[in-house]
């Protein structure tokens, strides 16, 4: 269970991390993380608040540099000194904090850094492509020519997701992509993750929603306090998952579940 590459998939290894650590001063946000992602595979990254999920994603996106450890992308060892290096390799990221420019409109945000026709921006083509991407996500966005500041949280999330799809990446990192989305949009994003996987891309998805995770993940990697804490498959029991995430079989989630169970049984007993 601790071997990170026991994903049965025989397809190409897109990403392979070995011994990644990241310290922020005295805080070790990540310690000795191993992670493999194959082509055509959805890996869910789960863990409690502060477990280090976002930090790991930022390391992969080139936002943070790891303190130690190696990253191999499609078989070759790489360094990611800045976000543009990651983007060039084909690693697209939706950040938890979205990272949009509020003063720019939706089209400008989606195409930021990848504008068509740099010396004479091709606004019409960009707008068409933006609408195509947004419609694929069944986005409810009133106008792509309004500054992003005027959008709701979920609309912004859709814009961030649309942006990650723009450049046909090889690996997509989604940090809580459905956290602010409505029912239809969440389903759309989960569908999209499956479509992307079927196209042979690797997907890393972070989510606190176990239902979503089970629905799309091929493998579930648990982080706890910045360390690997087990790999599960969607058929794993909730009990096992929760105890891996929280670190004990006697945890608040199972206590709560136990309490409710007991209450229910009690209720049945008192009935004549």
């Amino acid at each position, binding site marked *: 269970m601790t071997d990170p590459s026991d994903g049965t998939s025989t397809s190409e290894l897109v990403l392979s991390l070995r011994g990644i650590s990241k310290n922020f001063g005295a805080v070790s946000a990540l310690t000795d993380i191993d992670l493999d992602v194959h082509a055509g595979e959805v890996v869910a990254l789960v863990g409690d608040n502060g477990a280090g999920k976002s930090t790991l994603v930022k390391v992969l*996106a080139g*936002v943070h540099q790891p303190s130690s450890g190696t990253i191999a992308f499609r078989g070759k060892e790489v360094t990611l000194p*800045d*976000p*543009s290096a990651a*983007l*060039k390799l084909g690693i697209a*990221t939706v*950040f938890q904090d979205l*990272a*949009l*420019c*509020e*003063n*720019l409109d939706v089209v*400008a945000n989606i195409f*930021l*850094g*990848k*504008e068509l026709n*740099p*010396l*004479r*921006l091709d*606004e*019409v083509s960009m*707008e*068409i492509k933006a*609408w195509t991407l947004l419609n694929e996500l069944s986005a*409810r*966005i*009133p*106008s*792509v*020519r*309004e*500054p*992003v*500041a*005027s*959008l709701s949280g979920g609309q912004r999330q859709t814009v961030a997701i649309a*942006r990650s799809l723009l450049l046909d990446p090889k690996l997509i990192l989604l940090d809580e992509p459905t956290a602010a989305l409505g029912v239809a949009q969440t389903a759309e994003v989960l569908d999209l993750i499956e479509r992307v996987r079927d196209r042979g891309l690797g997907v890393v998805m972070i989510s606190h929603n176990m239902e979503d995770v089970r629905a799309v993940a091929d493998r579930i990697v648990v982080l706890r306090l910045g360390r690997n804490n087990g790999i599960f498959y969607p058929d794993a029991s909730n009990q096992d998952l929760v105890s891996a995430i929280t670190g004990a079989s006697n945890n608040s989630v199972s206590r709560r579940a136990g309490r409710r169970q007991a209450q229910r049984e009690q209720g049945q007993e008192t009935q004549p």
Partner: protein
Amino acid sequence: MTKDIENGAPAVPLLDRSDERVKHAAGFGGAIRSFLDRVQSGDLGSLPVIVGLVIIWTVFQSLNPIFLSSNNLVNLLFDCSTVGVIALGIVCILMVGEIDLSVGSVSGFASAMVGVLWVNQGWPVWLAILAALAVGAAIGSLYAMLFNRFGMPSFVSTLAGLLAILGLQLYILGSTGSINLPYGSPVVNFGQTLVMPHAIAYALAAIAGIVTFITGFRTAARRKEAGLSSQSLGSLLLRAILITVVLELIVFYLNQDRGIPWMFGLFVGLVVTMNYLLTRTKWGRSMNAVGGNREAARRAGINVRLTYTSAFVMCSVLAAAGGILAASRLASASQQAGTGDVNLNAIAAAVIGGTSLFGGRGSAYSALLGIIVIQSIASGLTLLDLSSSLRYMITGAVLAIAVIVDSLARRSRVSHGRA
């Protein structure tokens, strides 16, 4: 959407008109309504400065009828070109949310360099100008390096630069303190007398209208073809005609006197070019993005350091250019060049014109509008024979008002969701 005649009544809704919650301006009335909406939500654009200009002109004209005469306005255009070019550089640096306090010193140093190299050392004038611009670029790169490498706030580095470069200027001018540029030389003529032949001025005004129409028409055609909403031919025509008529009237009025100074033509040319660069190129997008949210820009793969460097260099080069223009306007390079209110006027012009001090918001045209406001105040008070003490106070008050308007508009934009 009720009377969008040009688009017919499409059976399939247009790609960007599928959300029925959004009111879309249609026709002339709609355009006015959406303009009022924008203003109410704090997206003021050039409105405050134009209102301010009308007030200032009305007041001065009522106090002294010479103020709006062709002759005085032509002088005003000569005078505003020099600091205007510097203000254009300030727009660049404010775009990325930084500041350059040394533009006055840089401009003074550039004018001193031209004086020393051309007049004293006998260099060809073009080479002297090139050298001054190159030194401007070097100064900008230095600020950028201090900012990118050492994280030195631009406020501090350019304040240090203000003093150091002023020292350099005094040093190279030496004991004489002032170098006269030869009268009758093309450089001095350019700053003092050269105006556009009337026919050329009319033609340029017409070309501006035609180009607006053609680009607007092309875009509209492409958008329509692609199934996006597009501006109607009528409103495009109306806009182009309006622009042409207004410009031609201005040219006509100024042609009653000498006409439009070439120096002002150069300034406007630079403004239009900068506007294109800021709004229609990838570089301009990066400038806006870095000014709006630096970290988001970095994560989008933009080379943030390079963007800052380009902003600092652009600002210093334009400051040097402004200094050279000032030397040609005054026919001298002196110890006073670039000192006094040059610095603050340039910064004030950009802000008064509507470029935000908070970064990520501004337009090249704000340099043009802002400097016309400032120069109008100066010119009006000179005509009234009022001392510079009053001029400083009034310009200061106008600047304060401009910054208040900027801050209030920003708050209103935040609450109306327009960043």
